[in-house]
């Protein structure tokens, strides 16, 4: 427990904000459906509840058919998060398998797997996903998860392969090999534990990809439209002309939720990045020396230069101060 606490304390602020925000959405996915005040599919026939503005009864308003949008959101977040996390786990596992095998085996295997990885990286994913899902007669949650995982691994595989290549040549791997360790033991006990932060970053990235892509696919209508996810809410809002009728409460909350989940993952990722290479952290910025802003990238300041550029009066005043004892020219140059 204390190691977890220490890890948390060392996290940059960005990563903490991201983690808390993402945790909120996970919580929402767990308890959201229980909290939802109405059945999300129930269409209230009361005429004053068709496309009603947000009110005390319906905190986020209603759709054109009188469905409660807050309930749809609370139920929908679960499906979206479930999908994204599952795709994250499966695709990251695939990228670890491909990346590590490729780097560890080397030779022809490495060549082949690298070409395959790069080909899948360069082919645009969304049109291929649309093609695959378009042909599927049943476009349910699982179909989307499988297809998204099948195309979500190349980026992580590439990064993990590069890292494994580096670790493979270290002395402790050679020592393990000399002492007769089996390959699978070297991979699972020596190599993978050294790549945890990279795998974490790759997982976060994959979850981000899964959320963005699944919502986009649902928005096009390539999903089970009878289930509630953030994407299907947006699909119905678009197809029922919410925009043209000015029903902002219909499409803003789900879109904002997607953006917030995405932002929390981006923050988490840059935070992990900074943990790995502290130089990327935002430093304190400019320091003030003798009334001038000095940036870390500026050449080391020379005090005479700084003081020489003062006005005549200021330089004269400065000559009385203790700091003037450090100057090379006593009264700041020009006055003499």
């Amino acid at each position, binding site marked *: 427990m204390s190691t977890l606490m220490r890890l948390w304390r060392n996290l940059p602020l960005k990563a903490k904000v991201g983690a808390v925000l993402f945790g909120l959405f996970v919580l929402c996915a767990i308890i959201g459906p229980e909290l939802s005040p109405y059945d999300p599919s129930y269409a209230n026939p009361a005429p004053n509840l068709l496309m009603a503005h947000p009110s005390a009864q319906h905190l986020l308003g209603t759709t054109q058919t009188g469905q409660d949008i807050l309930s749809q959101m609370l139920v929908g977040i679960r499906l979206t998060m479930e999908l994204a996390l599952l795709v994250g786990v499966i695709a990251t596992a695939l990228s670890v398998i491909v990346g590590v095998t490729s780097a560890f085996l080397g030779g022809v295997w490495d060549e082949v797997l690298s070409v395959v990885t790069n080909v899948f990286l360069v*082919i645009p994913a969304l049109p291929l996903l649309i093609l695959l899902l378009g042909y599927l007669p049943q476009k349910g949650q699982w179909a989307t998860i499988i297809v998204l995982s099948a195309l979500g691994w190349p980026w992580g595989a590439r990064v993990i392969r590069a890292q494994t290549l580096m670790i493979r040549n270290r002395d402790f791997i050679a020592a393990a090999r000399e002492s007769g360790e089996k390959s699978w033991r070297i991979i699972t006990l020596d190599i993978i534990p050294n790549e945890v932060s990279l795998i974490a970053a790759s997982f976060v990235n994959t979850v981000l990809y899964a959320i963005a892509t699944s919502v986009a696919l649902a928005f096009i209508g390539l999903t089970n439209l009878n289930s509630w996810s953030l994407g299907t809410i947006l699909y119905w809002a678009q197809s029922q002309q919410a925009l043209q009728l000015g029903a902002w409460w219909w499409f803003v909350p789900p879109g904002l939720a997607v953006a917030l989940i995405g932002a929390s993952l981006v923050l988490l990722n840059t935070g992990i990045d900074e943990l790995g290479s502290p130089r990327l952290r935002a430093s304190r*910025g400019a320091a003030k020396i003798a009334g001038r802003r000095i940036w870390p990238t500026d050449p080391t300041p020379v005090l005479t230069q700084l003081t020489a550029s003062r006005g005549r009066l200021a330089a004269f005043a400065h000559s009385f101060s203790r700091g003037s004892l450090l100057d090379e020219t006593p009264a700041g140059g020009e006055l003499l």
Partner: protein
Amino acid sequence: MLFLLRRLAFYLVAAWVAITANFFIPRAMPGNPVESIAAKYPDLTASAFKALELMLGGGNQGGLWSQYVTYLGHVFTFNFGLDIANYPTPVSTLLAQTIPWTLTLVGVATVISFVIGTGLGILAGWRHGGWLDRSLPGLMFLQAIPYFFLALLLVDFIGIELHWLPTGQGYNGATTQPGWHWAFIGSAIQHAILPAFTIVVTSVAGWMLQMRNVMITTIGEDYVVAAQAKGLANRRVIYTYAARNALLPQLQGFGLALGYVVSGALVMEIVFAYPGIGLLLLNAVSSDDFPLMQAIFLVITFTVLIANLIVDTVIVFVDPRVRAREVAR
């Protein structure tokens, strides 16, 4: 040249993978696409039906290998058959109508976003910890917004509430006709502002973050310190010493990012009803127009591959190390 030839070979492999996937997907998927098309469009002629079977499998068309060879021949002659939703318009005609719109929009917007993002990244990296650098988390929020959601917001606010810019279509069909005259070009630009703005806003932070990170590592290099020690002007050190070298990873990332931008732009076009290939793809999806979907996938992939090849050519000119490596061989 060797570098370019190797890249070209790689892109040919990628194109072949895409073509082959395109051939096998309809045959491997459960269900028979030709039958579902026949059920949906009962008044298809027998010859159209036969062409569909050739493209999507099923029926008596000989062995898989001969089907594959015929298919390859059709792809190389850009013969994608006749569209079924708009029978008998050839698919290639539909593609030729829509590609210029998407290509211009995505191309121009991506270059704008690349230039702005890289410029801001240079400044943020140089003044590491300054106000621009500290505003990055805010900008990254913009990056997380789905393209189509930002598009919805812009249409709602600027198009419908404020009436500043048109909300949809590629040009004003009531006042002008497509052609090379100013009335049309002006109208097209006016209609492209919001879509282009969407792409720029959502993708600029990514360029900026990457450039900033590379800048920060580059600034720590000895040659930058040496340049400063020589007393060169800051501007010279920034642009010709640090940024020039930090730009190379940025260019290499450009090709990969392109696929991502294109994917986002496809969905965004739907919101703007922009007459590009994304809207065509949506219509194909909603009407189960499989031949059109397949052709669109191939065309988008080819375009991205060609764009990658262009970026590689630029890298050869910009990066002397790539050329030097070839001489050393």
